[in-house]
């Protein structure tokens, strides 16, 4: 039986219409509905299924974020993870973190928790970087398989399928390994009310980035965040000749 670590991130809910702050320093996050990154939900589901198949012995869910991230961690516990690790950083620190710093922390957690598998979503829908799983594998010097379509665990190795252009690619990978999951690998379950209430009794270890030996000093400077440009209104012309002359004037033909 294996030990699984799974990373979860609290992001603005996918259904929320994102608004940019008037000063262009970022997006509005206060009083906006947040939930677990959908790809992280899929990773948690995959981990829980490993446990239900009696392949995984224990699942440790971890998150890096402000105190509200405890709720995201609780959702993971309610879905079936056994324990939690909460790396506390405040919202401002979190906003300035890069995937490399996140990966260093994730690698350290995978080591301390003696994980055999580290499961992650293929990307978080807020930053859209999609780098964390790959970099974590590099830091750990573990094999990696990303964007999984299916996962079958065989004891000391795993058979995975990945969606590639024109079909599916099947790979065999040795464990311990870092695996990131794509959309179609499963349909995550809901964290039910009784389980959310029970999850409150599950253990969550609070740690700081320094405990993991990771420097969280900002290395990335965001210059400006802006709304996508609004499409300019079109114009209705009377006939083909006008159309041609307009296009010529605009330098399109």
């Amino acid at each position, binding site marked *: 039986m294996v030990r699984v670590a799974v990373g979860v991130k609290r992001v603005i809910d996918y259904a929320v219409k994102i608004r940019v702050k008037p000063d262009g320093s970022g997006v509005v996050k206060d*009083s906006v*509905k947040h939930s677990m990154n959908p790809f992280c939900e899929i990773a948690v589901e995959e981990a829980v299924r490993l446990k239900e198949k009696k392949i995984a012995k224990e699942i440790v869910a971890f998150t890096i974020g402000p105190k509200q991230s405890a709720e995201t961690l*609780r959702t993971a516990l309610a879905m079936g993870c056994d324990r939690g690790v909460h790396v506390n950083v405040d919202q401002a620190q979190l906003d300035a973190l890069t995937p490399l710093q996140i990966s260093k922390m994730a690698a350290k957690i995978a080591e301390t928790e003696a994980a055999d598998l580290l499961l992650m979503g293929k990307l978080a829908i807020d930053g859209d970087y999609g780098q964390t799983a790959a970099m974590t594998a590099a830091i750990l010097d573990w094999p990696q398989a990303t964007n999984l379509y299916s996962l079958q665990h065989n004891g000391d190795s795993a058979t995975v399928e990945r969606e590639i252009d024109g079909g599916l690619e099947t790979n065999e990978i040795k464990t311990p390994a870092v695996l990131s999951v794509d959309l179609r690998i499963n349909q995550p379950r*809901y*964290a*039910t*009310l*009784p389980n*959310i*209430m029970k999850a409150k009794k599950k253990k969550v270890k609070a740690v700081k980035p320094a405990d993991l030996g990771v420097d969280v000093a900002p290395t990335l400077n965001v210059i400006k965040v802006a709304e996508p440009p609004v499409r300019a209104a079109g114009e209705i012309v009377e006939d083909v000749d006008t159309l041609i002359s307009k296009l010529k004037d605009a330098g399109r033909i």
Partner: protein
Amino acid sequence: MKRVILQKSNFLKQGVRAAGSKPIPDRSDSFVFGLFNGEINPKNIFPYPSVFNQEQVDELNELFSASFDAFDGTNEALENDLRGDLDPEMVQMLRDFGLFGMQVPEELGGLGMSNVQMARMSEIGGELDLGVSIYIGAHQSIGFKAILILGTQEMKEKYLPLVASGEKIAAFCLTEPSTGSDASSVQTRAVKQEDGSYLMNGGKIWITGGGIADIFTVFAQVPVQQEDGTIKDKMTAFIVERDFGGVTHGAPEKKMGIKCSNTAEVYFDDVRIPAENMIGEVGEGFKVAMEVLNSGRYGMGATLNGTQKGLIKKATEFAANRTQFRDKIYKFGAIQEKLARMHAEQYASEAVSYLVANAMDHKTENYHLEAACGKIFASERAWHCCDETIQVMGGMGYMFEQGVEKVMRDLRIFRIFEGTNDILRLMVGLQGLQYTGQQLAPIAKAAKSPIANAPTLIKFKMDQRAKEKGSKTAVNDLKQYVDPALHPEAQKVGEAITRFEVASKKILQKFNKDIINQQFHVKRIAEAAIELFASSAVLSRATAAQKHPTANKEEEILLAKTYIFDSLKKIHGALDQLTEQDESHWKNMAELTEKMVNADSPVLGAHPTELIHK
């Protein structure tokens, strides 16, 4: 003729009691009872109750949003409506989430929620599918409620885990073909057998969940031999299992709305019920039924808060995006009036619901008038909200796919079941008047020896006169609890409370005991009481919001002002209808009804095309 009227009033009295079991209290800290005396009883209304700390608020929001997302992601409201059934996947979701037993203690398999917590959760079904609300609501708000609040420990341990998980569905069986609003007239009988068990025979109609339930709370007459040898029927409550044998049901009823919830007739043929399945004692059935209905009533108001919010979102979104006459339609006064009023009424409705839920959590003894006001208020405001949403959306709102016409069909029943609004109005009016009548009793007694009691009588008369002239009002009693921004409104509501007290006492002095037969009057008194309660709840809620760090302070003041302005018009409108002229109007209507019923055809006017006059 006189005798007939007297009999009618006795039956009616029971009917009015039917809606609220409690005897009239001598002295009550209930706000609504107090209104009839011109008093502000602040206990369960001012300041607006602060129930939770931040952590508990976050926790409830977490449970709410987890359930909302799962409900929304699993349920197909329009499918349910067409199929007249609930998808098994949805039933499973409700079971997984523990939504069949929100108030059952955790150790018996439920979520152990308070009334306030359950009220919040009820908003989900209210917004997303009222059919589902009834599916799970009839089960736990009334179906097994008697076991939960009045059952023995053995009963609780035996049944609650089964019903909390949704493994077994429970149904509340009171209504019979001849037993509607008059709840004490049930015909189903349970006769005691030699071995101590009871043998039940009879039939019930319109039982929510009747076709799918396994556990029934049934009300039946138990014949008991009196000391003088005569037999008297005593209404008694029983828990009946389908497995006892002899329990059958009819086909699902076809109905206007809430179609995914099952409604059916349930028959009991020689059903043998062990004695330990009686709830309470022989003869306490009526009391049991009323306790259950009173405690379940607030859930409907709570549910409809969600409905109103869902409708407001739909109407606002439509009005913000729909262009006509080269402008978004929300820019037009005709639409603004609708949207603003819908929101103000929802604000009031929500303010009332949570006062009631909180009063119940604090084991307040006399909350039944508030609960009745809340049910009437929410069901009528939600109906209005839906009607206006459809009007804002125009033809689009009338279309099935938009889902609003379904809401309207689903909503209609809320003004009818669990005590029709008409009966509840009579209950609010009559119980309130009876309460103030009790306060007047010592005065009436004193008046029998006027000389000896001159000081008391003079003080009473002077008070009365000052109140009539408006020089003595409830204004200051009310203002002390209200934010200065709303003092003009508090002033007017305070004055209206005094006018209401004076009007109540006047009609009571005029009709005395015959007030029970004056439904035209009682209805107006009740209407004013409901609105005064709602306006006061709004004053309290908006005041509390001014002290909350992140509330939309200005907006809440605007909502309160908007609501109270309309409400005062309704209050004075109702009280204006208690004049002599109105009385001749009521008499005309009574006479007209009499003629309609007794004529060959109830449509009495000669047809316009036949009006030949030379």
